[in-house]
């Protein structure tokens, strides 16, 4: 294998999804010469997501044409530190992205800001319920950055995406029709909400009549034609029903391709190299500075790329793995609780009710967008009194109709046979009349849910795979049991013919087969104490000041929201710190 050494750049970005594109925009605007390295292929709306080929459920939704090819690299998974992990051989529970745009291509576009309390979770719980309320073994931490500090960056990302929604709190004034629990916002959403599918209209009425506070889901699926601050043009969403797992053929779903790349790719101080798979961050002999990265190019050459600044912009798991492979930061050890890299892996615990209606109430499930529908925040975050309930966390409850693709999304009443004449008859009678009420619940961080390198399994280049040790914990099961009573109450009020409840119960173990959530978090968490976080509040590694780490790997624990807007806001916040502070005096920012 030939080793090639390339000329140095000011900043190298590892991975080119949302955070890579944001960093690319912000750092080139600061005058840096920026190189992005993406292991996958280049992709754009045309030709890669063009109609009609993109409406192929089998190729995209089921076989995962846009997902990471696991034959080259995956993770291994086990339930406890005493088990032997086995590879995540096929996509199931979470869907890793690949190529330009990353998972920002095949997301649904649910757009949530964090609650102010989410960002200061330990402080909030200790103040309201006392220190003893937090169970033994749970690692609850503050992010180290406040909502007020992030607000301008949430606002910025909403304008980039052309987010469609209804504000609930503008400058402290509660707005009718929006989410009354949300943090203050400096502006209304850039676009009005998407229209609601039939099912969400019923949900909204039922939830409101029960005294809850439903509101239109904020969507990075444009409800109108829109031009963003970079001049990128989005088209209006047409409810095609092929959103998550697909690229958007309508230029309506915000993705790096539709919002940032049209501007970034024209900048002379920016370069993108695709099919460039970064192996490690290279370090100076004293281990105090990164000197660049080494990657394998499409032809198998090993390439050394020197850089003054290294920004890890890959998916949560890949960022953590690169830190481990590069020996940046002390590795986490669950036996002692010491070390930080790999600490606090978390996930989400979701549930739902499948609803089936009578023939006079067609739901037309194929009429959908990734984020079309209503949600409510009454039992999420610390929006309700946890004192008598005894658990930490909560869930958003929603009725979102993303589509009705029949291989993946056909839903039949509980007790229906899985094959044979009875199955076919149920499919015929129920498909048009199906909908669901779902919950998206938080999962906290725990001492023995963590990430490290697998001792056995290797990737296509011979490097160890990441190993995930994860299982459900009683606190989160208590949360979802409580949420299930609320989901059932609302589902009943919608008055369907049949309700089938689908919630996990205490004693259930993590099952990697069914899709659950691509909202994996932690492993390189942010904070204010280098003993309990891998990166500081500016997303800069504590030990190596010229390495920054983006992504949901920074979340100290997970919440009941989709993470993308928080990930993007943190990237803008970090980019501002690099531009305004780090470049003037390159060193530790905290």
């Amino acid at each position, binding site marked *: 294998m030939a080793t090639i050494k390339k000329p140095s750049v000011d900043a190298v970005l590892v991975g080119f999804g949302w955070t890579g594109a944001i960093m690319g925009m912000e750092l080139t605007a600061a005058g840096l010469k920026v190189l992005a390295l993406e292991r996958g292929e280049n992709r754009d709306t*045309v030709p890669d997501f063009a*109609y*009609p*080929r993109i*409406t*192929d*459920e*089998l190729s995209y939704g*089921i*076989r*995962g044409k846009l997902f990471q*090819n*696991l*034959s080259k*690299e995956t993770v291994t998974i086990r339930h406890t530190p005493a088990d*032997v992990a*086995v*590879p*995540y*051989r*096929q996509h*199931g529970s979470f869907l890793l992205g690949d190529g330009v745009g990353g998972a920002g291509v095949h997301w649904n576009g649910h757009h949530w800001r964090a609650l102010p309390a989410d960002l200061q979770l330990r402080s909030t719980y200790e103040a309201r319920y006392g220190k003893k309320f937090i169970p033994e073994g749970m690692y609850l931490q503050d992010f180290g950055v406040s909502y007020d500090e992030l607000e301008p960056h949430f606002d910025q990302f909403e304008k980039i995406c052309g987010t469609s929604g209804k504000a609930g709190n503008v400058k402290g004034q509660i707005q009718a029709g929006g989410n009354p629990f949300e943090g203050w916002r400096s502006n209304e959403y850039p676009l009005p909400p*998407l*229209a*609601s599918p*039939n099912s969400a*209209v019923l949900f909204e009425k039922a939830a409101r009549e029960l005294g809850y506070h439903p509101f239109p889901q904020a969507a990075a699926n444009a409800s109108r034609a829109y031009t963003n601050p970079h001049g990128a043009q989005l088209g209006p969403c*047409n*409810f*095609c*029903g*092929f959103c998550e797992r697909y690229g958007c*053929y309508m*230029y309506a779903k915000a993705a790096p391709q539709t919002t940032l790349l049209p501007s970034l790719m024209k900048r002379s101080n920016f370069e993108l190299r695709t099919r460039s798979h970064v192996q490690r961050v290279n370090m100076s002999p004293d281990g105090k500075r990164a000197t660049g990265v080494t990657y394998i190019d499409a032809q198998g050459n090993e390439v050394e790329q020197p850089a003054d600044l290294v920004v890890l912009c890959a998916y949560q798991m890949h960022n953590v793995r690169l830190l481990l492979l590069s020996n940046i930061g002390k590795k986490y050890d669950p036996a002692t609780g010491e070390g930080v890299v790999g600490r606090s892996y978390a996930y989400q615990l979701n549930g739902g009710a499948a609803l089936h209606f009578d023939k006079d*109430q*067609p739901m*037309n499930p*194929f*009429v*959908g967008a990734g984020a*079309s529908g209503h949600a409510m925040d009454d039992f999420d975050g610390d929006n309700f009194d946890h004192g008598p309930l005894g658990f930490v966390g909560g869930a958003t409850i929603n009725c979102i109709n993303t589509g*009705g693709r*029949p*291989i993946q999304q*056909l839903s039949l009443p509980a007790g229906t046979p*899985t*094959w*044979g*004449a009875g*199955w*076919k008859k149920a*499919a*015929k009678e129920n*498909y*048009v009349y199906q909908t669901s009420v779902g919950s998206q619940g938080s999962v906290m961080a725990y001492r023995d849910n963590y990430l490290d390198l697998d001792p056995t*399994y*290797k990737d296509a280049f011979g490097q160890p795979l990441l190993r995930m040790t994860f299982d459900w914990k009683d606190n989160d099961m208590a949360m979802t049991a409580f949420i299930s009573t609320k989901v059932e109450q609302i589902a009943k009020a919608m008055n369907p013919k049949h309700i089938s409840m689908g919630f996990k119960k205490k004693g259930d173990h*993590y*099952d990697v*087969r069914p899709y659950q959530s691509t909202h994996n978090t932690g492993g390189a968490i942010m904070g204010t104490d280098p003993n309990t976080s891998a990166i500081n509040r500016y997303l800069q590694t504590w030990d190596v000041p010229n390495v920054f780490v983006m992504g949901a790997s920074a979340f100290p624990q997970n919440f009941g929201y989709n993470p993308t807007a928080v990930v993007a806001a943190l990237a803008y916040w970090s980019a501002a710190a690099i531009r305004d502070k780090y470049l003037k005096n390159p060193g530790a920012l905290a």
Partner: protein
Amino acid sequence: MTDLPEPGRRGFLRRSIAIVPAATALTATGFVVAQNAAVPPAAASPAPAGPPYTPVYFHTEEWAFIQAAVARLIPSDDTGPGAIEAGVPEFIDRQMEGGFGQAATWYMQGPFVPSSPLFGYQGKMLPREVYRAGIAATDAWCKQQKAGKRFAELDAATQDEVLKGLDGGTIQFAEVGAKDFFTFLLQNTKEGYFSDPIHGGNKNAASWKMIGFPGARADFLDWVNKPGVHYPLPPVSINGPQG
């Protein structure tokens, strides 16, 4: 576009034309506009039957098994098309030769260790090898238990009983996981039933017609928030209107 050598250029044009269905238009800006909702419903007559499909992967006896098994998993009756009319056997044969059958995007490095089903399929065998071994094992089991008959030679009720045994774990094999085999078979049968007709199954989009899924229309701006209204148009494929 750069100049391609003549054969390459012809090939490119052929491929380009092949992916643009009648229902699609390219505007001057390159923006693809879905106009399929305006396509009038095609006549309800089924498309003329083509020549019978000749399997590429499955041997004759395996092919008989596949046809018999999918005919029980989704039987033909008054409700709607069965797996045979939907072309599911052709779909599965094509999948065996494609990425799925060869686990092209699955991590298939060892060691392969027995583990809880919660961690998904952990076998060393490719899906198409699981089919080959699973069919042979099921036929051998049937011959031993059912008076020397292969699965395809059994009556429908007995076939159902065997499939339930594979599904429920009461039939087990030494050489391949019976449940793994059944899981792939049922998954692929439903995929072949419901996927776009371009993959060889769902002939004439008949399963979509049965349940009311409009297929590749993918343009419903006028149909959101219409309580009580059934969507009126029949399905289209990526390849255009279906019979």
